[in-house]
């Protein structure tokens, strides 16, 4: 028996070394950790349980049959994060560049099936050169199997992708199908076709970092959700996010903790929001005033920053926040910000996370590029997402709520359960200047001093409509509240809507304006 155990231990430690000392040294040279080190840093200590270490690869051509590929280039298993069960896979770049072969994909789909059947979050660490060319169509089949499961599991269990190396070609579509993508500066690279191909086909020259580096995906494409400066920071971000998301879509939702200590938080929103609607401020400060202990985890911080999305806790329960950011592009809605918000709203709805919407925006951004980029189609996503969502929906109008944007930002008309407004709220079809120019065109042009007349008429319009009381008079707003009462009103609304039920018409699924 002793002998047998010794043999097992020996082969285990040999296989756990992956591609061997030399390949590990090379990985370190690129500033990257090994697959096992990554898992160790990500999970609670000593909770990782590995499966399929002894898997053998399927490549039988081009002399591959005699090669040993430890674990076939991927590590799979389960573990815990803050005591919560999670399933993990990590591609091992030290074994033939982490290339995806048939058995490699089988391992990944196995852990995906585990995660889906046992209802726990799935975290995938990607670091791979792509399909293993020697395995031909088998490698492609592997990708297809992964994409299919990503889609099946979408909205059932949280799926997180971490890009810690190259992720090119078809491989990028698995992360794109998952809920959240994490990238690290200088390490993550994602693209469909690399700089070489682009140069050959189109003659355009670009380096890898400018084409598909971490920053590009966080700022420009919106493919990534979390940006980290190094791997350690990235793993902490994942751990933090896991604290906020449920393990699966049917997890029992705990009741709100209405502890005296939590609800008696001193808040000062009055000081943050300027009364003058032309003065910007950071809406994230308002969110931090509202949440428990001022904690807020922002998602896609660098992409379409004119809208802020993220999670906070209220009464100990996870709440999704969608807020216009007056500090960036005046907080307008455009293609990217509508896209960003719509997907987040659908995420919250899928996982029963209530949404709090903070509104302060002048409307949709006018412009030829916006119209031609399809702002109608993109903007519609937001209307769709809010209308479709059956979770508790609470809106607080902080200041400006003009035009189509007012409707889009979870208005009463799209099914908001509670709509509150601060006394600084202005709800109207358009801003006072624009409206006065249209309504009083005749008076203004006929006046002796048109500029003076315009000023008077703008003021007249402002006095009449630039306030929350017209909408409140129609019942579109439930209450006009003091800024510092915001948290209490939201907490109360969350508590009241705990057992909310909406019966939607039976259908297979809707057709959102993707």
């Amino acid at each position, binding site marked *: 028996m002793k002998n047998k155990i010794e043999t097992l231990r020996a082969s285990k430690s040999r296989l756990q070394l992956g591609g061997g000392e030399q390949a590990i040294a090379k990985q370190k040279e690129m500033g990257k950790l090994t697959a096992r080190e990554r898992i160790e840093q990500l999970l609670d200590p000593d909770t990782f349980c590995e499966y399929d270490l002894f898997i053998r690869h399927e490549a039988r051509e081009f002399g591959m049959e005699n090669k040993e590929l430890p674990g076939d280039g991927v590590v799979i298993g389960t573990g815990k994060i803050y005591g919560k069960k999670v399933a993990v896979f990590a591609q091992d770049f030290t074994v033939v560049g982490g290339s995806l072969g048939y058995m490699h994909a089988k391992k990944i789909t196995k852990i995906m099936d585990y995660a889906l059947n046992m209802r726990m979050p799935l975290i995938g660490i990607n670091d791979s050169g792509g399909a293993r060319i020697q395995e031909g169509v088998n490698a492609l089949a592997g990708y297809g199997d992964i994409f299919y499961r990503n889609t099946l599991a979408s909205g059932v269990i949280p799926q997180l992708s971490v890009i810690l190396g190259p992720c090119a070609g078809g491989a990028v579509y698995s992360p794109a199908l998952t809920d959240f993508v994490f990238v690290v500066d200088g390490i993550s690279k994602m693209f469909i076709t690399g700089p070489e191909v682009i140069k050959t086909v189109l003659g*355009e020259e*670009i380096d890898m970092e*400018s084409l598909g580096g971490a920053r590009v995906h966080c700022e420009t494409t919106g493919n990534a959700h979390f940006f980290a400066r190094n791997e350690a920071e990235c793993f902490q971000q994942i751990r933090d996010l896991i604290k906020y998301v449920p393990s699966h879509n049917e997890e029992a939702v705990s009741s709100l903790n209405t502890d005296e200590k939590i609800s008696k938080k001193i808040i000062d929103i009055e000081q943050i929001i300027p009364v003058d*609607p*032309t*003065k*910007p401020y950071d809406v994230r400060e308002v969110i931090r005033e509202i949440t428990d202990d001022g904690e807020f985890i922002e998602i896609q911080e660098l992409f379409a920053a004119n809208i802020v999305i993220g999670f906070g806790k209220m009464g100990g329960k996870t709440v999704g926040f969608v807020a216009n950011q*007056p500090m960036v*592009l*005046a*907080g*307008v809605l455009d293609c990217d910000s509508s896209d960003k918000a719509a997907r987040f709203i659908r995420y919250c709805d899928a996982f029963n996370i209530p949404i709090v919407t903070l509104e302060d925006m*002048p*409307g949709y*951004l*006018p*412009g030829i*590029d916006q119209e031609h980029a399809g702002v109608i189609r993109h903007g519609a996503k937001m209307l769709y997402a809010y209308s479709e969502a059956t979770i508790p929906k609470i809106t607080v109008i902080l200041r*400006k709520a003009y035009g189509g944007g007012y409707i889009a930002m979870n208005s009463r008309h799209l099914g908001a359960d509670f709509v509150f407004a601060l006394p600084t709220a202005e709800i109207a079809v358009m*801003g006072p*200047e624009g409206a006065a120019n249209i309504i009083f065109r005749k008076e203004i042009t006929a006046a002796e001093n048109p500029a003076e007349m315009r000023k008077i008429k703008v003021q007249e319009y402002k006095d009449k409509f630039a306030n929350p009381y017209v909408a409140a008079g129609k019942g579109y707003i439930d209450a006009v509240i003091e800024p510092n009462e915001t948290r209490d009103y939201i907490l109360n609304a969350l508590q009241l809507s705990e057992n909310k039920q909406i019966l939607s018409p039976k259908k297979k699924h809707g057709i959102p304006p993707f």
Partner: protein
Amino acid sequence: MNEKNKSTHISLQLYPNDCQYVTLPNHKFPPKKGWKKRNLNEIRSVIPGSVTELFVKEGGMVKKGTPLLKYEAMKMENIVCAPADGRISKVCVEVGASFPKGILMISWE
């Protein structure tokens, strides 16, 4: 070809050996501009608007964070600050003039 499928950007390629090969570009493709690396010494407008105040002159030295101009867009006043230390080499906007997105406002060395 069907009249309604014609676009202003059609490219037709004819071959003499009895075969006709047609290549049509994507309608959206022709007006696309090539990718250019961002010039970090330029500040361009990110949103249509108008300048309401200018705080700097050509040739002036600025430190990182110095306010350069105030510009109003979508009913909001924004202060544009210097992203780095340097000397203002060009001011391309005037107070009161309105401009679209993407125009050069200030460049420096």
